[in-house]
């Protein structure tokens, strides 16, 4: 049963990656990566059960943390980059 859930998650991850490569806008890519991250967290948790190793949950937790920080970081970066671009255009 875990296997079924794991496979469904795998397929979802694949689709997310596809979206990340296809774009078309930057935000689509970030969205896809975020989705991919959440799916990975779940995937690792399910996998931990599949293999009978509950300490995998630690990794899943770290993933959840890091995924959030990365997405926010990436967003802030592009936001920041835009403000600089704007100030350049005006100058």
């Amino acid at each position, binding site marked *: 049963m875990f296997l079924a859930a794991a496979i469904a998650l795998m397929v979802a991850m694949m689709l997310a990656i596809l979206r990340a490569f296809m774009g078309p806008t930057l935000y689509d890519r970030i969205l896809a990566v975020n989705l991919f991250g959440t799916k990975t967290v779940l995937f690792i948790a399910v996998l931990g059960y599949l293999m009978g190793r509950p*300490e995998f949950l*630690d*990794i899943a937790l*770290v993933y959840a*943390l890091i995924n959030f920080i990365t997405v926010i*970081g990436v967003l802030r*970066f592009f936001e920041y980059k835009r403000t600089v671009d704007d100030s350049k255009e005006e100058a």
Partner: protein
Amino acid sequence: MLMGVYSLLSASFFVLMDAVDVAFTEAAVGAGISTILMLTVLAMAGRFENRALHHPRIALFVVIGTGIMLVYGTFDMPAFGDANAPVQTHVAPHYIQQSADEIDIPNIVTSVLASYRGFDTFGEVVVVFAAVIGVLALLEMKSGEASNELAPAPMYQHKILRIVGKILIPPIMLFALYVQFHGEYGPGGGFQAGVIFSAAIILHAILFGVEKTQKAISLPIVKILAALGVLIYGSVGIVAMLNGGNFLDYNALAENDITGQHVGIIVIELGVGITVATAMMVIFLTFARRVGKANGETA
């Protein structure tokens, strides 16, 4: 950013191969910190990119050539999971079979990393520290001029981000420390803990601006701490020598061999954690400050 996906993927592979600790490191370092550091560097370097000096095709050629050679090299390696492979027959069986008796902690990876391979790990910590020194040497040369901070995007509008960030940062830090001290029992240890802790600080810097983070965590102190981490590691070795053992021979730290190993591992993991955490913070904060400076000059 696709690099981040790559890290996530490879971490999944490590999970599949049952290498929990490696996956942990990859998750923390590869997916998070490296992406953020790359972006910071991009923010800094992107503005004044020099014209390429050599033809990019040559570089591509070199990369492809190296890739082919690497793939060719792997043909010589034993098949994955081959029991007769040199890796499996050399020291690994000793580590796996004796670890429980000699060191008595459940996570073999930690005992290998911190005890059997104490010298190697010490070397890695020193490398991290050297990286910090390198970054500082390159970026702080023009110190003294008034630092003009990372242009603060209007944070007061990001109500949701601010509040959620405030709620999340303390638990993240605590989780980092949890990983630090449970390295003996589950996956984790100093390297991962350091990265997670610094990630919490970096999140704070991203959300509230570098200026505010620096007010709370002054760079000089962090730099001293980075050195202190290496010092802790090294001094464990020296204390062991004073007690009549070899450098980094934890058995000499206490009356009982096993207690000695425990104490030694905990202390050096702490040293590793401090060094890694502070190293990441120093690198990020220095870069972020430079970003502000560089753009102040060009914009």
